[in-house]
């Protein structure tokens, strides 16, 4: 059982207050979709949840572990706008390092994860040679490996084709069925059983 608690979160960027006093709780199996206009602070909220940015005020914790603590950081998997891939490395090396930084599960190999997102035989392809959608798939294949309980996905479906979106949606649903928590932002229509929506 995991529980993500966010209370009274306020975020300020420059002189602008993006959002103030946001509070919510997510329990095991819940998926939260954050929606809002461009510039409303969706990415900022996810970055704060990931421990990358600091909030002006407020508290957040996973199972009573505060953000920044070893346990909190072990529980999250964050995927931002940037590709998180190094062009000089092969897909497999990139994925290996990404999962080393996060938590690695022993039961699924890197090649299998790449095959799952439709990149069979791409193990030894340089990330530089991939299209935008394929790069996104490589990073998203980490979802098949990570053991993190809370997934924070910022626009995960960008650049993906219908088939790619389907694969990732299935994986997110499986994660939620397994008792995981997922917070995502997207402007695209998705078929996820979104349990809750937060509008900024």
């Amino acid at each position, binding site marked *: 059982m995991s529980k993500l608690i966010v209370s009274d979160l306020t975020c300020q960027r420059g002189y602008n207050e993006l959002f103030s006093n946001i509070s919510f709780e997510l329990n095991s199996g819940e998926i939260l979709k954050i929606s809002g206009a461009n510039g409303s602070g969706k990415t900022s909220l996810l970055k704060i949840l990931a421990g990358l940015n600091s909030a002006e005020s407020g508290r957040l914790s996973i199972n009573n572990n505060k953000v920044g603590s070893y346990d909190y950081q072990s529980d999250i998997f964050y995927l931002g706008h940037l590709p998180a891939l190094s062009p000089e490395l092969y897909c497999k090396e990139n994925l290996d390092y990404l999962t*080393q930084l996060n938590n690695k599960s022993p039961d699924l190999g890197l090649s299998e994860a790449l095959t799952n997102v439709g990149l069979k035989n791409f193990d030894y392809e340089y990330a530089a040679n991939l299209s935008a959608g394929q790069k996104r798939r490589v990073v998203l294949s980490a979802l098949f490996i990570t053991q993190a309980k809370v997934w924070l996905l910022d626009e995960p479906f960008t650049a993906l084709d219908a088939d790619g979106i389907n694969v990732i949606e299935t994986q997110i649903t499986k994660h939620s069925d397994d008792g995981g928590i997922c917070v995502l932002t997207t402007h695209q229509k998705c078929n996820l059983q979104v349990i809750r929506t937060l509008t900024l």
Partner: protein
Amino acid sequence: MNIFIKTLIRDLRMSLRNPSSFLNPLLFFVIAVSLFPLAISPESHTLSNIAPGVVWVTCMLSVLLSLNALFHYDYENGVLEQMVISNHSLPLILLAKTISHWLLTGLPIILLSPLLGMTLFLDAESIYILMLTLLLATPSLSLIGAIGASLIVGIKNSGMLLSLLTLPLYIPILIFATSAVSQSQFNLPINGQLYFLASILLISLMTSPFVSAIALKTSLD
């Protein structure tokens, strides 16, 4: 510890696949040092006098040239974000990156220095001391440079700022290292300078990864 080795191998692999990243500063070092005899005087006495300063100043500038790339690419493609939010120790990851930077800039400079020392008419003993000072101090250059590089992450066209931040911290190293080599030419004792260089190395080794980690988190926030 696993993440330390993984990061070290990853960074070395990336640099070796993109050799210009570390060959450019190294070429700059060789070319700049070998231009001095042409510009000043081919006389052995003059050259051996200025040799310690020439080699050391050029070494510093070439390390400075390579520092920009230390975190820049990982920042641009988002891997740095993943490093910061990882549950592994960020100072350990940054130490691995800094050591890989030293292995590809400091170490080749040390290996090339006897050859360049010979072209500047340094005697065998002074070349030995020159290599010793480089061995003691180039890791400090990378470590101190890492602090500067982590402060300017995310700032565009920050080369000038990096020099302004880093060079003042390099000055003590420059003073002790060049004076050690110069004094050795006159058979004067140089233990004091070497001890200072060693202590600077120890202090930077202990503090730099932690300071860089804090600076990096602040830069990304």
